[in-house]
């Protein structure tokens, strides 16, 4: 699946995990280092599953730390 960064940002908007503009997030930096805590990450991944129609295993979930990680993961699906 070829998801784009903009599509990912749109999922962040819809998830309501932050009031910041998702464009402000550096795709290479772990989201937890940009103010997204572990609970918000769980919500984001929940909305990613819905938005992209994928199931993200608990094992894979642990490796999805940055937007780049998520994009790379979605390419494998």
């Amino acid at each position, binding site marked *: 699946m070829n998801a784009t960064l903009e599509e990912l940002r749109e999922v962040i908007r819809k998830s*309501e995990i932050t009031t910041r503009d998702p464009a402000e997030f550096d795709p290479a930096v772990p989201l937890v280092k940009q103010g997204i*805590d572990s*609970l918000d990450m*769980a*919500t984001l*991944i*929940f909305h990613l*599953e819905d938005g992209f129609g994928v199931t993200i295993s*608990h094992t894979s*979930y642990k490796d999805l730390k940055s937007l780049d990680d998520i994009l790379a993961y979605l390419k494998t699906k």
Partner: protein
Amino acid sequence: MLGICNIGVYIPKDRVSNYERKEQFGIDDAFIETKIGVRYRSVKGPGESTADLCLRALEDLEQRYALNRAAVDCVTVVTQNPGARIPHVSAILHGELGLPESCAAFDISLGCSGYVYGLATVQAFMRENGLRTGLMFTADPYSNILDPEDKNTSLLFGDAATVTLISSEPAYLTTAFTFGTLGREHRELTCGDKTLYFNGRAIFNFAARYIPPDITRLLEKAGLRLADVDRFVFHQGSKYLLDTLTKLLKLDPAKVAYDIADYGNTVSSSIPIILAKELDARAGTLVISGFGAGLSWASAILKKT
């Protein structure tokens, strides 16, 4: 008609402050208050057994209601932390309370879905056998199995016990139930040896994915709309989870109970602790929904008589 007549509650007075653990877990006040939603956790005394917690809950019930112990013909305990494995806690309570020899006593092994499952089971058992006065206890002291170094659980769970009097003089009737199980995920919430394992992401995902459609299914079964419900009493998993369910179901936040800031997630006791307060408020129609170990869930409609 059998239903919920009254509820007794025991929350131990001892508290552990989550504010004192901010440095240990790298969290701040906002995380404690708006995410976990638990500022203090209730913890039982080291010598207090599961049966002891239940007896204290019964003391509270007997202050609210003139219970005739000689009339009790069914006693059950919902727990997965009974202390000793043999005998069942309900037999210990039966002996301690001097209940009649004709009284049935059995335990139900369920976690956070246990109160709703228990209501369905005990009421059906009583109806089928012509029983009239039941005591259904909940007590699952997770302080026995918590790892103090585990951020996922040691900031969350508190100890408590409740007892629900089920009789033919009910304040609330249950009018519909739904149940569900996701056994393929059972490894995500376990206690194999002595310590709780709790996969926070898995439990969050499970609740967010399965509980909103279950509430829709429950309302359809009862012929109700969301707007017909006065109060939603979900299992108090965490404030974040309650807020998530509120958003996903597009509920009015004022209708959604949140009560755990000063004692924590008390497993199967979380719903009846709130219902005990609702008995005084007397909302007309309530939805209750419990979910957790199994993974399992159960929801019900309660209607004021």
